[in-house]
């Protein structure tokens, strides 16, 4: 887990995973049927 904070690449991957997860959630809840 520390690698995700101490390494820039790790931090990048962590934030990207959170962001894509949140975006997928938005699509599933509010944009279903539109995409």
């Amino acid at each position, binding site marked *: 887990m520390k690698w995700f904070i101490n390494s*820039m690449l790790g931090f990048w991957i962590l934030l*990207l995973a959170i962001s*894509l997860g949140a*975006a*997928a959630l938005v*699509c599933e809840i509010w*944009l279903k049927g*539109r*995409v």
Partner: protein
Amino acid sequence: MFDFAIAGVQAPIFLLVLVGLTVGIVGGFIGVGGGYMVTPALIVFGFPGYMASGIDMTHICGKGVVSTVRHRQLGNIDWTLALTMIAGTMLGVELGVRLLVYFKHLGISGVVLLVTSVALMFTLFLYTQLETRRAHKKMEEMEKEGREIGRELQTSNLPKVFQGIPLAPIVRCRTARVIVSMWVIVLVGMVTGVLAGFLGVGGGFIRVPALVYVVGASTHIAVGTDLVEIVVSGAYGALRHSIEGNVDLMAVIFMIAGAMFGAQVGSIATSYVRGPAIRYILSYSLILATLGAALRLIYVLTGQNVHWLSLAAVVLTLGEMIFLCLFISSLVWFAVRRRGGKWVPDWVGPLVI
């Protein structure tokens, strides 16, 4: 759900406010309008393409004013550079639009646009990323040696080449601390204008790297100065789209409600970071936008039959906005911690002030 009568669309208000907020933060931080993120998002929300473009342009103009005022207060705008470049940009946009019309007549504009976007954004990403990594590494070494690091450090030799062109009149840009031929600035405006007009975008993601790597301005100045261009082009675009009836004012109001706050946050956030941090965020924005455009290109080339590609492009566009905001917020949070003498990761140290 809100009924947008002019567009004939029902969409959740909070999503529009959220898009305005996130793109406001990103735009204020890296000096772009964010059209390449907003227009696809609005289309997904159900707005027709022409309406999405009109709403996007109008909101960019309003948001650009807020960001410009903030950057002016932070001393990030070089007016000589901005006003000289506008002349070239105007001419370039006109040429770009004519080029687009030519390709439309040939019947291949859609594919050409996507291929050009992907190639251009990937090239800009690659150059910005590699240069910023070099600058970051150098700053890490300087920090280890206990040397003082300034607000800006860039390792490209291109500015020296362009500043050495002895073509009169030579312009002295006092705020940017750059002495360069006027024709170089006009040419930068024109080339970026052609690309912006051709691709149908504001062109901030092309102009900011051009101002840094060709003219030799610092990243903060490039961001502030580019926002002046965005206000001008956004105002013209908003006027044209309004006359054509492509703007749903209620959607614009909701987006601006979020963008006004976001633009201020993004602009102020630049005062917590050094130049390479802004360039990192710009390069991340470019690679994610490249991936989104590449997915759309493959979707078009496969006859629009592979639906998961379209879905992936949407998730990537929305995810990009959230990702960039999270990264910017994290950098500010790390900067505040560092100022308070608290622990921050080693890689963050040279990037924040």
